[in-house]
């Protein structure tokens, strides 16, 4: 440890953070289900990133017609079989991953950006501000999510963008509730009192003391919500209110595949498996995060 008052090395300054990160990695790796979740999530991200370069039939993404090849069962040439247009299903399922990723990110991102500040303000400021925000949140929470999303999409018209808007509006109240509780608890902590005792403004306290200590529950909820948001978007696609054919999207694919069940089973099964694995992966990963971020399992 240097006694000179010069710049300490990067390693010195961040020794604690590095130690903490290694502890998290160790804790996380002790749970096989968490590792499985992590593996699935990483696979999903890889496919979403590199999809267009690893698919065998890129042209099939946007519906090239190849009617001679329609509804072929899984084979060496077409791992997941083909759909009613003759497009390779494997290509379409893989490319739909990218759609799902940005759908999930956008919904969760918007929900967090709107919900977290409202929640922190409600929890910390209390009084009238809290009443107004929480009542507004209650109004949104009392309408079942899918019904509200349907209503919004019906008003805006179908299409994946409108589906995302609708779902973001449905999703933000959950974050308000989560963060409000944490901010309320933090408000009476001595370190917040200490900040007030030196004259810190509300804005500074919210940004420096309250928000950073709320990140754990937000991260856990956001990672689980990714899977659920993707599922919700696929549900909208399934009832025809999300992505429109021929754009590749899992829910839309299953919607069309319904009429081809059970004889041409691969058409519905593979997109369905993709949704299932994605939601499972994010859930397991989120569970794993919660286990390591829970204060009771922190040391020190």
């Amino acid at each position, binding site marked *: 440890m240097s006694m000179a008052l010069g710049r300490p090395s990067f390693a010195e300054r961040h020794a604690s953070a590095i130690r903490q990160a290694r*502890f998290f990695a160790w*804790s996380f790796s002790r749970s096989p289900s968490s590792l499985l979740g992590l593996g699935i999530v990483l696979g999903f991200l890889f496919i979403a990133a590199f999809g267009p370069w690893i698919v065998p039939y890129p042209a099939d993404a946007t519906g090239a017609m190849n009617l001679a090849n329609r509804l072929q069962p899984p084979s060496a040439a077409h791992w997941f079989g083909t759909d009613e247009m003759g497009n390779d299903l494997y290509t379409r399922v893989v490319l739909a991953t990218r759609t799902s990723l940005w759908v999930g990110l956008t919904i969760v991102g918007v929900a967090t950006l709107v919900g977290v500040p409202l929640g922190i303000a409600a929890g910390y400021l209390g009084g009238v501000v809290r009443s107004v925000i929480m009542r507004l949140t209650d109004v949104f929470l009392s309408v079942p999510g899918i019904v509200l999303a349907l209503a919004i999409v019906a008003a805006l018209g179908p299409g994946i963008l409108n589906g995302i808007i609708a779902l973001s509006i449905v999703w933000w109240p959950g974050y308000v509730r989560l963060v409000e509780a944490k901010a309320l608890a933090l408000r009476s902590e001595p370190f917040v009192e200490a900040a007030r005792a030196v004259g810190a403004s509300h804005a500074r306290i919210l940004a420096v003391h309250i928000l950073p200590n709320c990140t754990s529950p937000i991260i856990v909820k956001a990672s689980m919500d990714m899977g659920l948001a993707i599922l919700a978007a696929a549900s909208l696609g399934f009832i025809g209110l999300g992505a429109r054919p021929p754009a590749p999207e899992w829910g839309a694919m299953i919607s069309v595949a319904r009429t081809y069940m059970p004889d041409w089973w691969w058409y519905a099964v593979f997109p369905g498996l993709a949704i299932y694995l994605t939601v499972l992966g994010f859930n397991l990963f989120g569970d794993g995060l919660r286990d390591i971020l829970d204060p009771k399992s922190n040391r020190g």
Partner: protein
Amino acid sequence: MTPLLEISGYRLAFDGFEGRAHVLDGIDLSVAPGETLGIVGETGCGKSVLARSIARLVDMPPGRVLGGTIRFGGEDVFAMDSHALARLRGHGVAMIFQDPMTFLNPVFSVGAQMVDVIRAHDRAEGRPKRPRCAARAAAAALLAAVRLPEPERLLDRYPHELSGGMRQRVLIAMALAGNPRLLVADEPTTALDVTIQAQVLRLIGELVAERGLTLLLISHDLGVIGALCRRVVVMYAGTVAEDGDAETLFARPRHPYTRGLLAAVPDLARPDHRARPIPGHIPNLLDPPPGCRFHPRCPLAIPRCATEKPLPREVDGRRVACHRAEEAA
């Protein structure tokens, strides 16, 4: 006379991310029936873990017994099957902990919890469970025994409606429900106000005398220990430093740590005696000092202390684990 509790060479460690913490390093302790023993020490000395070990309440893993035995009433605690263990907990050993609020379930009334405990003890001791009304009557009797007013009405109250002192009395009543032979009280009054503490300690002292219980009282507060205990064990960093009669230990402490501890406590009755700190800090149990664990802070340390762990030996009628225990008081 066979000791009620006999701990021999007990070594316990906890395995965690950073390695193995050697929490207890060879504890030898024996408690005769009817004794009042106090264990005093600071954070990290292992007193609470030792107390929980008696009833096998330490999670293993991450805990791991590295050696030694604990015998209660002659039986090896670690060799007990689930029936014997159920009888041990409550009928053999009963525990009272520090914070009564976290040990009482907030959603059940006091009476409901006590009836639960009483009937569980019935089952553990091999009797048929008595009917609820009989258990309720027994619960009221116990609440009266701990000098709580209006026991019948208290049975229907919830924990949050009671004050800290009353909750602690309820816990004591629950501890007595199993007719234990050994009462282990781990910091029973630390969370209480000083006037309430005096009441509760007096109650524990009277109950122990009335029922012929053996008492194991754990505290960091020398005053609490001095009030109730005839015999004192001083622990430091997982080892026993000194063990013997309270009067002589307080008057003529032989272990340098005991001396340091006594000098560090302010005393209202001796205002000119300024509290003097012990230099240094408690060792890291992941990498404890070799030899005597106290030697880095000890004013009497010699080279031998750093290499050879001192074994307890008889000095001045007490067991002291120090190479230089004979030197000036």
